[in-house]
């Protein structure tokens, strides 16, 4: 079976590349084992958080960093397209292109962010709080949202919070089993006809406050219910991230996948690429679990299998490996150097990833594979946690690789 481009991994990087290439007329296949980092999405895209100005931060990164390989001017160009690009898919992000703002973490901290979903709370870059008094609501029995931490974080910045719990009889069944009281299950319940009743409960606490903050537990399959809820609540309503799974992350994953399929792309979920056949420095075909001996051929391939978290990289006694093709991996030989004792320091293993040349082509036996590109968190040389660059690297590298393929 033959495609123009085959993409391995259906997370943010794989889907971005798949949509971009399909839009420009390519016949694409995405094979994805399963869940991606989007299921853990905070509601905010990070581009580079080392400075208030993400581009200033980007220009100071080392030469092995994927951003440096992609090039400053390209990054400016791609990044300008991100917001409209998501809007076309039906996902609204807000934020200033050249300036990071702040988002509130599930533990009440403040972190820099580049673009944030419009239904989420976001704080201007100078840190002035938009509210004096807020109602901070949780759903009774929901353990993945910690109002006490968030209230403390807000108090430090001079915001008075009124913490309240809301309960609805429709959730009683979920409450019988604590591990069922998860964001996705609540969001399944808080939909359709129940939005009106939910708004009424929220409004009981919304009278004397500047805004209402609540966990992101609405809008699993689309943003219609979110907009309806916001309209019915009498004060501005903002969501805050919960612990995983992330309701908006799952929605974004589904919407991107649908968009890709509507553009004619083939998405094979629940299947894993297990091997590839190389010939004259090119990847010729791949094989997957479900399809046995069938070979999927393509002119170009994109490896977007993520980091350790998504099994795009694995660590064995012999070191760090890229498990499908055995590509070259940048890591450290001595295992003791992988980790720093202090958990809060930047961890060296976070920089590990597949080696690439200047065009993001993956290296095998120290030579670039002519038609195999890498994109997203499988790339070496970036530490998304430390730099706050996760989604940015995924999207920007995917767009860059897609452009390189189309230019060929």
């Amino acid at each position, binding site marked *: 079976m033959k495609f123009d481009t085959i993409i391995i991994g259906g997370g943010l990087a794989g889907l971005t590349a798949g949509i971009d290439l399909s839009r420009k007329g390519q016949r694409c296949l995405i094979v994805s084992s399963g869940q991606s980092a989007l299921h853990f999405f905070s509601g905010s895209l990070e581009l580079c958080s080392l400075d208030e100005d993400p581009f200033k931060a980007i220009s100071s990164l080392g030469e092995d960093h994927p951003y440096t390989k992609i090039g400053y001017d390209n990054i400016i160009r791609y990044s300008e397209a991100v917001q409209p690009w998501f809007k076309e898919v039906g996902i609204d992000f807000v934020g200033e292109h050249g300036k990071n703002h702040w988002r509130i973490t599930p533990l009440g901290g403040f972190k820099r962010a580049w673009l944030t979903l419009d239904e989420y709370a976001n704080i201007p870059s100078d840190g002035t709080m938009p509210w004096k008094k807020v109602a901070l609501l949780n759903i009774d029995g929901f353990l993945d949202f910690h109002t006490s931490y968030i209230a403390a974080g807000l108090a430090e910045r001079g915001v008075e919070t009124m913490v309240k719990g809301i309960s609805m009889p429709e959730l009683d069944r979920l409450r019988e089993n604590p591990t069922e009281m998860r964001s996705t299950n609540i969001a399944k319940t808080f939909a359709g006809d129940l939005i009106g009743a939910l708004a009424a409960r929220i409004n009981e606490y919304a009278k004397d406050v500047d805004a209402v903050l609540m966990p992101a537990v609405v809008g*699993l399959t689309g943003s219609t219910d979110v907009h309806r809820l916001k309209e019915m609540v009498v004060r501005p309503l903002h969501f805050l991230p919960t612990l995983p799974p992330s309701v908006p992350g799952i929605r974004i994953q589904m919407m991107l996948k649908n968009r890709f399929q509507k553009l004619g792309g083939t998405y094979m979920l*629940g299947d894993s690429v297990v091997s590839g056949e190389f010939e004259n420095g090119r990847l010729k075909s791949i094989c997957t679990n479900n399809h046995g001996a069938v070979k999927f051929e393509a002119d170009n391939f994109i490896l977007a299998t993520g980091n350790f978290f998504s099994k795009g990289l694995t660590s064995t006694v012999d070191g760090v490996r890229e498990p499908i093709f055995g590509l070259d991996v940048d890591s450290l030989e001595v295992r003791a150097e992988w980790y720093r004792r202090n958990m809060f320091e930047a961890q060296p293993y976070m920089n590990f990833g597949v080696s690439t040349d200047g065009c993001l082509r993956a290296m095998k036996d120290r030579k670039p594979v002519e038609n195999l590109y890498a994109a997203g968190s499988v790339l070496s040389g970036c530490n998304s946690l430390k730099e706050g660059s996760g989604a940015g690297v995924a999207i920007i590298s995917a767009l860059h690789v897609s452009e390189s393929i189309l230019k060929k």
Partner: protein
Amino acid sequence: MEKNKIDTSFEQCMKCTVCTVYCPVVAVNPNYPGPKQAGPDGERYRLKNPLFYDEALDLCLNCKRCEVACPSNVKIGDIIQSARLKYGNNKPKLRDYILANTDIMGSLATTMAPVVNFTLGLKPVKAVMDGVLAVDHHRTFPKYAGQKFETWFKRHALKKQEAYERKVSYFHGCYANYNHPKLAKDFVKIMNAIGYGVNLLEKEKCCGVALISNGFKDQATRQAELNLGSIRKAVARGEKVLTTSSTCTFTMRDEYEHILGLHNEDVRDSINLATKFIYELVDAGQVKLVFKDDYTRRIAYHTPCHMEKLGWAIYSTSMLKMIPGVDFVMLDSQCCGIAGTYGFKKEHYNDSQKIGQNLFRQIHDYAVDMVATDCETCKWQIEMSAGVTVENPISIIADALDVEATIKANRK
């Protein structure tokens, strides 16, 4: 023969609840505990004490959509089905016996097809089925054909097969044998046109999918062993065993091992869906298909749940796209609600229809001439609920095929 392997994949569960997002039953029925709780969570308790078994597990469709979505490879659907077989104390009813024994029903009905078709459609009969047997009266029953495929094959096709050097075996399944012999005949027509002779298996029983879901494990195991025996003989002759039903394929390849605990590794790769087999031949340039000029249809493809699990929809859709006159539309992959015999039961009828709502609406919106799908029960459900003709891709290819030209193109 039986393997006594306890599936421990439930220990891999990290409680992420992603499976629950994709379960079609959770979406419509608040009384269903959902895949995580019915599967890995429940298994932990059931292993401690079987009294923890919850009859609500009968609500599971065995669609496996939870498994496809699970990032940790937990065999959620298998865990639930195995638990039902092991602990379920809702004794199967006479109704379940009738629905599950598709081949006994089939052989009785075929001989009396006109009478049976007539009676199954009759209001008073439906009322009795509804009241006494709890088969929902809204259901239209699949029609039974007057002559079984096997009988037709022996009388009209068997001899001709000797002329072919290359051969495949055909597992026709109950539906093609009793209800819709045209599908089986279409299969023989295509295979012959591309230069392959068709053998039937020495003995064939229903694959057993309905026996498994209705709690008849022993009978399912006996039938599975008989089928595997026949399949082994075909494989020993050097033949692949092809089917025209995604569910029979999935059952024999995966459920025989995962649910019934039988060894099938030796023949698993030889059990193949006809569209996949033919696609691979065409793709490798080993056979050619020539289509009629005047075949034009707007066709939407529906991915049956077990096809989604196999991951093989791409072969059937690629085959359909090869037909020049086909205006192809892909439907979102979602459960149609029937899940074999599930939707026939009175207690499930409403859920079954609710699950299929979105699919029926999408089919309607796309204004297609016809829906293509690889599963016979999806066909019944969609024909009844969306009011559109549904055909197996094999039948569509056979109708669009220029047989003479194809024979010529493949003559060596």
